[in-house]
Every structure is written in structure tokens, then in C-alpha cells.
């Protein structure tokens, strides 16, 4: 089983992927995705979810579990029976829990990813996310559309693009 979270991000069963992407990219990939209606999909969030409010409940067939501590998260991962597990990273789960807990969560994700499609997602990575992502089979970074350099805007009408002639060595179809 595989599904495209984004045209350049294809996720497969039996892998643990870490994804860093803007929320709108993830929401576009989750909402109205026909694959997600056919399989058991578990969405796991922490204390605060930036994704859940944006999910269109009619378009996906998902189950949700919220972990309010990292220990609850470990319990959820151990109990999971779903085909797809999507974990929205929440750094506050690891506050005061000791550094080794995040490594254990990463390890649990890796083990679960041997039989399941596991995604660890964050809008922006932090230290605990990166610790866990080190154990992932693949890590995807999707840039925000807004972060791309703006396309050059034409000033006025009919401006000649290469007033000094074409760059050297470049051919046009007319010249072929």
C-alpha cells in the first residue's frame, strides 16, 4: 500500500517516514485522499494539534488518539493495529520526561514501521523530532510554497527579455 502525501512524497507500507512540511501541504495530502478511506488510519496528536482542526471529517475515515504525555504515546504505539499511523509531533510531550523517552518513542516508531506505514510529522523540526527522525527510513523536507522566490514580474507590457540578444550557446527552435 502506498499513498502520496504530496506529489514528491510517496509513503509506503513497512516504512517509517519523517516529514517536515507546512500544514497546508499535509492537509491537502490528507483531505480528499481516496486511499485514506480504504485503510485503517490512526491519527495521533499531542496536547495541541495544528492539523486536526483542518481535517475535513467527511473526506477521510480516521481514528484519533491524543497523547498528553510521552508515556501515553508509547502505550498508543504499542496498542496500534492500524494500517497507517500518522503522528503529529508535539515537543511538549517530552518536557520533563527525561531525554531517553524520545529515543524510545523513535525506536517504537521504527519497530511499528516494519509492518505499518508510519509517518512522524512536524511543521518545523526541533531537537526531539530530529532525534526520532534519525531512526526513520526516509526523511522528507517539503518547502513552504510561500518560501519559494517570487517569479519575476514583468514591468509594463511587451518588455524584451534579452535586449542584448540571446545568451551565448542557447538555441531557439527557429534556429534549428
Amino acid at each position: 500500500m502506498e499513498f502520496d502525501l504530496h506529489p514528491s512524497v510517496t509513503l509506503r507500507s513497512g516504512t517509517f517516514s519523517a516529514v517536515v512540511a507546512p500544514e497546508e501541504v499535509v492537509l491537502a495530502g490528507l483531505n480528499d485522499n481516496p486511499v485514506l478511506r480504504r485503510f485503517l488510519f490512526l491519527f495521533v496528536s499531542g496536547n495541541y494539534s495544528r492539523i486536526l482542526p483542518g481535517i475535513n471529517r467527511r473526506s477521510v475515515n480516521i481514528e484519533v488518539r491524543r497523547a498528553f504525555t510521552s508515556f501515553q504515546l508509547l502505550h498508543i504505539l504499542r496498542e496500534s493495529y492500524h494500517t497507517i499511523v500518522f503522528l503529529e509531533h508535539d515537543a511538549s510531550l517530552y518536557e520533563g520526561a527525561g531525554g531517553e523517552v524520545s529515543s524510545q518513542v523513535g525506536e517504537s516508531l521504527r519497530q511499528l514501521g516494519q509492518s505499518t506505514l508510519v509517518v512522524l510529522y512536524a511543521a518545523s523540526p526541533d531537537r526531539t523530532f530530529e532525534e526520532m527522525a534519525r531512526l526513520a527510513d526516509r526523511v522528507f523536507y517539503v518547502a513552504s510554497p510561500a518560501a519559494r522566490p517570487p517569479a519575476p514580474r514583468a514591468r509594463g507590457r511587451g518588455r524584451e527579455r534579452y535586449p542584448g540578444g540571446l545568451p551565448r550557446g542557447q538555441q531557439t527552435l527557429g534556429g534549428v
Partner: protein
Amino acid sequence: MWILDTCSRNGQVETWERGRGGRHLVIPAPPSFLLYLPDPHAHGDLLEGLECRFPLEECHIRTVYETLDGYRVQAGREVADLVERQTQYEALIFNADLRLDQCVLAERNLVPCSEEGESRFSIDLLSDLPAMEISVADNPFTPGPVTSLSLLVDGRQVRLEGDEKTIISDMEALIRSADPDVILFPQADVWVPRLAARAAEYGLGTGFSRSGRFRRLSAKSYWSYGKTEYRVGALIPDGRLLVDTRQSFHYRESGLAGILLGARLSGLPPNLSARFTSGTLISSYEVYEALRQGIAVPYRKSDPEAVRRFSSLKAADRGGMMFQPRPGIYTAVHEIDFTSLYPSLIVRDNLSPETLAHPGRRGFLPGVLAPLIAMRMETKQKKAHDPRYAGLDAILKWMLVTCFGYTGYRNAKFGRIEVHEAITGSARDVLLHVKDIAEEMGFAVLHGIVDCLWVQGEAVTAFKERVERETRLHTVVDAYDWLVFLPMADRSGAYNRYYGRFADGSLKVRGIASRRGDTPVCIRNVQQEMLALLGQARTLPEIASFREPLRERYRQIRETLPLVRPAEMAISRQISTLRYRHACPEASAVQACAAEGIALSPGMEVSYVVTDARTWAVDLDWKATRFDVGYYQRLLQKAWEEVIFAVEQAEMEGG
């Protein structure tokens, strides 16, 4: 054995009785924890290793959910942490992070601040302990020696002045000779560490501690109900109750009686019940109750929320119900208020983590909250005639208020988010049901906030009786001669800004300038004065008749505002951070404190006077010599608009 203080040190618990010559007991109390392994055979090596190093025995572990077969390990928390890691967090650990003194008291059926055999849930408790009051005249936030200190001993005021060494020496002698059980001291948690450090430099003691030793309570910033709060660190003396009367929320709200009741209920020493938040008190009470009942207290919060369908999550995850009022002035209004609604719903509906799956079983939470609710009913009734019960009522109120939020707190030992949601769900049903009853009985519903409803109508006794019968919840009804709901900026009704006159002539004021903690004293006083004038009016025509006296007062204060002392313009606010991104008065106040060498932490309160609102320039309150008159005139105008709105509405209603 009336225990005034407890602590644990080096594997021992120490207790102090009240009174001169009260017994000081030292009880051996080696730390231990309970361990459950889902698959003990997979961890044979671990068990063997533990058994070699520490006393270990098989035991039954009774949790709120079930009884497990596990082990009691006589070792500290650091061993519990190692076990967790080695089992990849599969092991369930209990009772690893509890206060040893609380455990010993629970095991031996001892209760702080209580005579032997006395019920913890009795509302008649001794609070006339021998007390001494101490105050220091110097500024606690500036370095330098103490130059003036006052003591109130046996009704006699003693002022100590001169060089610091003599002051400390005399203070020590006076405390030792009076040997009070209680010391009431404004800013004690700032002054005592300084006095103790200076005393040590001079080779003296302070007399605060009955053993000469102190325990250190560290300072911390924490997040509570959407605000950054700060708890100042403290040096806690052995064997004596030291209350920082300025900083202790419970002392301000509940007095000494409330602090002692908090200790009695939570199993904590009163030195801690004076300093801990209401949330910590209720959670300590639950832990103490669990220990007394032989229920194990989980070390980690690992029982997660059940799998939810996305649609059911959206439906359940809502807060309290509110009805928006129409701005205006209303007469013949009644407010029906549910006493401790959320905890009462926990008890009524048997809501507890373990009853989610087994609703027929009597839950732990309802069981421990029921006696508190019964006490609150009693104190609420008695305080109306006897002010001695007001403090007890206040501490119970705050503990019960926070018990609901605690069910949803991520680290709550006995909380679960589904319980939290079930409580708010029940409360929404109750408020909607009461609204239906009111409308059916011909009342107009004016406003509703979570646990109270404002209605306009006459047959209020029958209404109250029916509400109590149908909801099985206790209510209190208050009658208003008139009530004002203020508008928001968009002219729709504000949910939490209103004021009115009760039938007995007293006023209830919520959310307006005179109630806000950050309103300058000058503006607060003016608004209170205006409200007191309005409070003389029983009817709308009488309110309308106050237009001119009110306007005259407003004109007068507006004219004389530039002459007011700058200190009266101080605005006190808690700072949420030390690094503000935008220009604001709090950012300027943080800079001003830094310039004065005052160390701040998020959650601390700073007091400043705005000297230029365009740049948000401020002076610290104690240094301010001027203020931005235009800025304070605008604040004054807002306070005035909140008052004159009542007059305008009264005139419109035909007054």
C-alpha cells in the same frame, strides 16, 4: 498529637507538634516503590538484579482500575527510573514520586493540624495558635541591610532599628522567648533567606526554625489557566509555620484557618499548604486519600485516551455553555447559581477514570470529592452568619474549582481527558435543561455562564425547587434590584462584564475597571466611589437621578488628574516572558527592572507607571515622578463609560 510541621530528610520523616515543648519525632522511612511487569518472565534478569541489591517482595498492587500482581522494591526514584528504561517503559511503577512525610502520615493514620481522633472533614478546627507578626520596613527588592523591623508579640508592638546585626540578634531573642507556633510575615519568602544569610555572616541565628535548620522550596515559573505564574522560592523553618502573608494566595483568600484546613485535607505540612496552588492541594488530597485507602498512585501518566472516531471527538471536545446577554439594565433579576457544579457532577454522575469502562462501579474521584462537597455546603451556609467559616469556605471553594481542571491535566494521577469532557458535557446539559425549565415557567433568560443563569421573573422559589429536584444539584438564588450587562466593542453583550445591586443593598461587580487587578488605584477608587453612589439607587428613576452627581465627580477628577501622586497610577501586571517581541509597557518594565538590578522571572508581577504611551516608556512604581496624563485620562474615561452606561440605560427604560 497535633502535628504542626513535617518533613523528610535522609530516609527519615520528622514531625513537630504544636506548642512550646511540643514533641519532635523522627521516624525511619526508607523510600520504596511498587513495580508491575506485564511479562515478568521477559524480565527475569532485571528482577534477579533488583533482588540482589534491594529488599524486594511480591505484593498485590491495588490501582483504581484493578489489582495487579507485582513487587515492592525498597529503593528510591532513581532505581525506578532505571527499571523503566531497562524495560523500555513497559513496566508500570507506582508510589515512586510521593512525599515521604505524606506516605508516613497516611500509613499511620495521622493527620496534620488535627487532634487525635478528630475527623479530617470536620469544619470546626483550631486556628488560634500562638502567632507573632513580623514586618520589615525596607524595600525587599533593593539590596542593602535591614534597617527597620517590627514585631507584634503578645499584642505588644516592638520596633527594632539601628545596625543590622543588632536587629537580627534582637529579633532572634524575641522569637525564641515568645516561641510562637505561627509567624505571619509579609514578603517572608523574600526576607527570610536574606535575614538567614546575614545572620550566618554575623555568626547569629534567626530564631525562625525550631531546630535551627530550614528546607528550601525552589522558585519556579509555571503555566496555569492560560497565564504564566511565578512561585517565589522559600526557606521553610522546621517546626514552625511561617506564612508570607503578602504572597500566599491561600492566606489572602482563606486566612490561617484555610491554610490549616488545606494541610489537614492534603496531608501536607501547613508551611506547604500556604505556598502551594489550589491545584496542587487538590492533587495532594487525592494522593493522600489514595494512600489512606491503599490505592497505588501511578508514577507515570501512561493510560491514554481510547481510540476516538474523528466525528465523536469534535462533538465531545467543547467547553462550558454560555448564553450571551443583551447589553442593558434589567430589574427584578434572579441569579441561580449551582454550588460547586463540576465536582457535584463528578459525584452525581459517578465520573472517574475507572468508571468510564465500568459505570456500575463506585468511582475513586466521586468517593473522595463527596466529603469536600458536603463540607462546602456546610461552610457556605455557616459563613453567612459566622465570619470564622469564610476562610474554610474559601479554601474548599478553590480546591473544588480546580478539581475539575485537574481531571484534564496531562500529569494528573487520577485524571483522564474523557472524564473532563464528560463533566463539561453534563454541565452543558444541566444549563440547557435549566434554561428550558425557566422558559417553561415564564421566566426570561437574560444570561448564562457555565454554572449560573440570570433570569427575570417572579416565582423564583418554585423555580429553584424544581431545578434542584430535576437536576439533583444544590443551588443558591440571589435577587437583584437591578443588573447591568455591559456591551463589548461591537455593541454585543459582554459575557463577563456586569454589575448590579442585590436586594440587601450590596453590589456585585465583575470584569470592570474596579475589579481588574491591573487598574491603577486612583481609577479604581473613583469607579468604586461612583458605583457606591449608584448602589444607593433601588429603582431605575433613582439611578437616572444620579447623572449629574456622577458627571460632576468625573469632571472633577479629570481636571485634577494631573495632580494625583504618580504612585497611585501604578499598573501591576504579571510578566509572561523576559523577551517581549513588540514594544509594550511590560517590555519597558522588564528593562527598567534590569537597569535597577532586579532579577525577574516569568510570572512575576511588576508595577509601573506609564510615562509616555506613544513609546510605552514606563517608570517603576517606587521611582515614578510623573505620568502620561493623556493615557490615564483614557483609562479614566473607560471606567466612566462603564458606570454611565447604567444611567443611560435607566433613562432609556423610562427612568
